[in-house]
Structures are given as C-alpha cells and as structure tokens.
C-alpha cells in the first residue's frame, strides 16, 4: 500500500510561494489561514534555504494523540484527516503539532476560534468523495480524481514532491546522486565560492 508523503527539495526551492497560492485557491481556504507556508532560513545571507511546509501527515500524529474528541483518523493512504463536524476548536492540536499545521478561522470577536483547518493532502474529508459538502468543509479531493496535491504539481522548480513515499524518495536520491547535495551541488561554488559549505 502506497504511503503518501511530501518532500521539499530545499536545494531547488526559490521561495516563490506558488504552492501557498495554489493551495489557497484550489481549496478556497478562508482568509487568515494558510495550509502551506514557505519557511526561509538565513534569509538574505549566503547559504539561504527555503522549505515549503504543511501538515506532514505523521505516522503517529501528535495532533490525533491530544484531540479530546478523537476527530482525527488516518486513511489507508497514510493521510491524516479530521472531521470538522466533531472538532470543537479547542486548539490542543495546534500546540501539539511540531509543524504548526493546524489553523483556526477567526469566527468572531474576543479571539473565538472556529473549526480547525489543515492540509488534507488534497483528499477531502469524511463526507462523500467529490461532494459539495466535502468541498465546502475541506476543499477539493484531487486524490479521488486520480491526481496529486496541487502544491506539488504547481511547483515550477520541481522542488516540492508529493506522492508515494517510496517513489519520491527514489526521485530525490537520483537527484542527489546526479547533482550532489548542498555545497556539493552543481553550481554552488560558482554562486558562493568555496567559503560556504553546508
């Protein structure tokens, strides 16, 4: 059985934020919520790195472990999904997640939170596949359409990989063998000389 995974090739990410924009548009994510974000380390310095981050669909998900209403479930594709009908917006999963994936819409004044929203790996929720109710709550279900998450498919530099974990790991290994990694990669010494090594 295939296990769905994301893998961001940090040597290729140019922080264009196309993955963030594509995700927001595809799922009509509410204002103030980003299911995916691009994190930049050493911004503006030699050796700068950007990584596109979203829910990593953990095997032993800490969000599911702390949820007081057990609204999380893992599909056969190893995608961690949740039911917005059960979610009470308590915020425990936000504190438990090491990636900051769970987000909450602001539904009123005084800091009141709505139902949690996070990356669904473009595979909807507990409602019927490709139904209107599913789209309104969780966004589109591209996996059921025979496609992959749009963030990865949109990536112009082919930095963000998604799909069967074994397959994308193989793709990444081939890249590393071909071009090297970090300061060993092709073009690194031209850009940064030999003074910076990662």
């Amino acid at each position: 059985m295939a296990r769905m995974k994301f893998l961001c090739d940090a040597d290729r990410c140019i922080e264009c934020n196309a993955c963030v924009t594509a995700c927001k548009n595809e799922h009509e994510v509410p204002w103030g919520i980003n299911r995916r974000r691009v994190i930049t380390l050493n911004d503006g310095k030699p050796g700068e790195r950007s990584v596109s981050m979203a829910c990593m669909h953990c095997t032993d998900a800490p969000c599911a472990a702390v949820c007081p209403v057990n609204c999380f479930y893992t599909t056969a594709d190893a995608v961690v999904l949740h039911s917005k009908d059960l979610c009470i917006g308590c915020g425990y999963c936000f504190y438990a997640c090491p990636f900051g994936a769970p987000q909450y819409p602001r539904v009123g004044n005084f800091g009141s939170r709505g139902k949690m929203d996070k990356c669904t790996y473009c595979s909807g929720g507990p409602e019927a596949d490709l139904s209107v109710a599913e789209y309104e709550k969780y966004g589109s279900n591209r996996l059921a359409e025979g496609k992959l998450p749009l963030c990865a498919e949109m990536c112009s530099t082919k930095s963000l990989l998604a799909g069967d974990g074994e397959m994308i790991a193989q793709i990444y290994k081939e890249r590393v063998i071909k071009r090297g990694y970090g300061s060993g990669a092709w073009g690194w010494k031209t850009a940064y000389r030999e003074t910076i090594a990662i």
Partner: protein
Amino acid sequence: MRQDDQTRKTDKTRKDGETGLGRRQFFRALGGGTAAAAAAVAAVPLGSTEAQAYDPGNAETRSRYRETDHVKAFYRTNGYETLKK
C-alpha cells in the same frame, strides 16, 4: 457533680423535644443520609451520556490514491531516470 447532673438533664430535655433526636444523633443521622445519597448517585449508569470515540467507516479510510497517467507524468517529469526503467 451538680453541674454534670444539670448537663445530663438538659440533654435529656432536648432529646425529648419534637424531633425525638439528640444533638449528636441528629448530625450522625444527617451524615449517614448524605453518604447514602452519594452512593445512589454513583450507582446511576453513565452509559447513556458517555462520549463515543469517532470511528470512521471503511468508506472514509479507504485508499484514494491511484497511479494514473497523470500521476505517472508527475513522477516522470520530476525524476531524471524514474519510470524510465
């Protein structure tokens, strides 16, 4: 001795009042009643109000991933040699 006799007399007077209970017996009886009430509450079955864990059906957790031509094209364009073998 006279003072003790007086106290006993007073207690007897109170016991013989309308309730038929002495001061100490009254609180003893009240305490026993409270314990009995607490036991009765604990004995009430909670099955009807117990929270149920979310049990997603097979339809929700089934595999949706399919290696379609669309997906194969993604793998092919992202890898140097993938799917060429």
